[in-house]
């Protein structure tokens, strides 16, 4: 016992129990007596101290056993602080009656907000809009990306430079894209309208109709993200061993058959991956719609992501927005797992 207590009081970098005890005393004291700005940093310092003693101890004794865990610890810490903690916190809020811009403290509401959100016709309308956009834009991206990949799988002059050019849209920021397409579609100055004017003598107002606005958004999004699909498919195409094609050529296999028997199995999983990524991203589509149409005309292009933004940050109906956001998160997780399941099953078949 005495040995243990003397060990406890030894000032060592590896003595984490002492550091923890010190932190337990210092943090409440700091919070209680000091201004919040100072207490915040002292708390941070104390936590850092505890963590570093733990690290030093683990590094000293069980270096091998814990090395992996230690290496990912900083990343996990950041993930926890920046992502998981707010996620759990807002999950909690979705069961409470709370508005971020009111003084009233949260009161427990159970599943009320989930019920409200699910029975809200506006939510279903926005989901419907989102579904249309997802189907259109993902289809367009898959087709265009796939065709581009087939094109770039061959060797031709200037291929490398053209490839870089084709990849640029995906590297642009959404805001730049939005501003760019806003001007592109603008009926007075815009390139599209000016071109139509040249051909027909009439200006063209794309964003006036619901169909036009939808088309404008889908085109902009597909323009930006088709190169991404292309990049994935292309990596699959170039990985097909040449000798398979040579063998096929000797067997005089038709190009159609050659594609399905040789090429497709190599790119199938990549196509699925592209489909998965793009569907999830398109499901969350916000930026382009917000910049191009603000959800208009009326609410005909308002995606569910924009609606969540409105109820969270314009109406400050915090509980509704968190409940809705969790339903969406759940949907995305289900979608992800569905695709992964299919992807795995296909992989097993081949």
């Amino acid at each position, binding site marked *: 016992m005495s040995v243990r207590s003397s060990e406890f009081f030894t000032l060592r970098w590896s003595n984490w129990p002492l550091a923890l005890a010190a932190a337990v005393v210092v943090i409440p004291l700091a919070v209680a007596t000091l201004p919040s700005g100072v207490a915040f*940093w002292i708390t941070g*310092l104390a936590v850092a101290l505890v963590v570093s003693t733990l690290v030093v101890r683990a590094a000293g004794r069980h270096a091998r056993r814990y090395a992996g865990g230690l290496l990912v610890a900083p990343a996990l810490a950041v993930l926890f602080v920046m992502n998981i903690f707010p996620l759990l916190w807002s999950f909690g809020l979705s069961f409470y009656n709370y508005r971020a811009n009111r*003084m009233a403290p949260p009161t427990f509401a159970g599943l009320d907000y989930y019920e409200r959100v699910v029975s809200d016709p506006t939510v279903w309308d926005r989901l419907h809009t989102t579904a249309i956009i997802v189907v259109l834009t993902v289809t367009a991206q898959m087709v265009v990306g796939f065709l581009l990949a087939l094109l770039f799988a061959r060797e031709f002059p200037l291929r490398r430079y053209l490839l870089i050019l084709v990849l640029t849209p995906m590297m642009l920021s959404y805001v730049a894209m939005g501003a760019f397409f806003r001007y592109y579609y603008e*009926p007075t100055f815009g390139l599209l309208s000016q071109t139509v004017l040249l051909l027909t003598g009439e*200006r063209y107002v794309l964003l006036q109709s619901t169909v036009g606005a939808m088309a404008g958004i889908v085109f902009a999004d597909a323009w930006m993200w088709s190169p991404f699909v292309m990049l994935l498919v292309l990596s699959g195409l170039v990985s097909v061993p040449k000798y398979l094609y040579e063998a096929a050529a000797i067997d005089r296999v038709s190009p159609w058959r050659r594609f399905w028997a040789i090429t497709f199995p190599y790119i199938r999983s990549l196509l699925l991956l592209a489909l998965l990524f793009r569907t999830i991203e398109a499901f969350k589509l916000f930026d382009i719609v917000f910049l191009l149409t603000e959800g208009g*005309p*009326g609410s005909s292009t308002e995606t569910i992501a924009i609606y969540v933004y409105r109820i969270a940050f*314009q109406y400050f109906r915090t509980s509704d927005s968190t409940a809705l956001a969790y339903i969406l998160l759940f949907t995305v997780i289900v979608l992800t797992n569905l695709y992964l399941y299919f992807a795995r099953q296909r992989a097993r078949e081949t």
Partner: protein
Amino acid sequence: MARTTLPTLAAASLCAVLAGAAGGLTAPAYGKDIVLRMAVPDWPPTRIMKELADKSYKAPSGNKVTLEPDFIPWPDYYTRLAASLTSGEKKYNMAVSDSQWLGAFIEGGYYLKINKYVDADPALQAVFKDLHPAVRAAYSTYPYKTDNLYGFPQMPDILVSYYRKDVFCDETEQKNFMAKYKYKLPCTGEEMDKTTWDMFRDYGEFFMRKKGDTLAGKALDDDFYGVAFQAGKAYDFSTTTVHQFLWQHGGDIWDETKAPNSHAVGVVNSPVAVKSFEHMLSLLKYMPPVAKTGGMDVFKTDELFREGKLAYNVNWIGFAETGMSPATSKVSDKVAFAQAPGLKTDKDKDMVRWSQIGGQPFVLMTWNSEETNQEALAFCKWWLSKDTQIAFAKGGGQSALKSVYTDPQYVTFRPWNRAWAPQLDWQKDFWHVPEFFELLTEQQEQYDKAITGQQDAKKSLDTIANFQEKLLKDAGRIK
């Protein structure tokens, strides 16, 4: 390494604790440095304020007070301010706030009620007495039009008309217009002040020209349009114009001052409201085609005007400075200003000019220390003193203080000043209640459907009325 002892670290953290504590206690009793951190939208009226403050503000307390504005671009402004306030970071001591946000942020406990300071200070009472009542009600009160005071005018703003004098005053255009419409095409500011919506329509029809046509003696290298007003989907960019027509025709929005007995249904979608909205919609065809897309916000009409594509535009005074500057405007030397159009139903009747007030008050925050509040109030008093207001007006701002804008010199400061005072009596504001954003967004969406031709005026207003009625009932604002 594991052997390094803890004392160093413990001592270091102890030092930090002591230093932190001492920092709060050991300040000299005189000539303190005080920083007023203020959230402001980034545009000329706030830039001018910062410039004036740096140049000439000396705190009467003897403290060294610095104004530290955080310039935030307009389109992000609400989101950024709301995020800062609701996050609890308590970053700002003051903020420039659109008047319709008052309710939301007062209920949130962020904006400070200033009645007790006003009651204790005759100088502040004098300021409020001198303030135009419409501006006082719009910028300072919550609930709207009560005696609870929260803000001071930072940049009071109203809609005025911007027009091209080279186009309107051209002799050939004058002659052709007279031949076609049987009355004189206005040229001077005084003539232009008399513009009615019928005349507005005529300007629109008359000046709509194709590329290659002649305008004021010159061949056009691109299409040209007669008129524009805001009719955009975002924020309040169609509501402003719709309310202008609504009030001028004699209709009204849901009246929060008469809650809980006032209603939205029957008011918002009354026959006169439908008529006024149809009137507004009928003018869109004389505007640049972007008006049909919901993209016609104030920034777009301002841009079209500065690019020389418009003869006449209705917009906030806040944009005037950029319209006059050769660095930002192709028509800097051709722009003139007059009052916004009004409604004249009969030749013998007076013009009705009701309009949606723009501009912003600034407010104090509830978490300020007493000392900061005193300095902030002293700053507000300096800002609303006659000399500062005159300097502000000369630099491109506006003053809502009677003693300033009734000064005969006032109209000589900037070319739009003459349109200011006569229109002040005609200003109203929309709701200050915390639910304003939901009321507003529904309007913007439904108006947009009518503006883009998806549905008619009646359907839009019926939908809005039902939505607002339900929302206000659910929120407990009406019975």
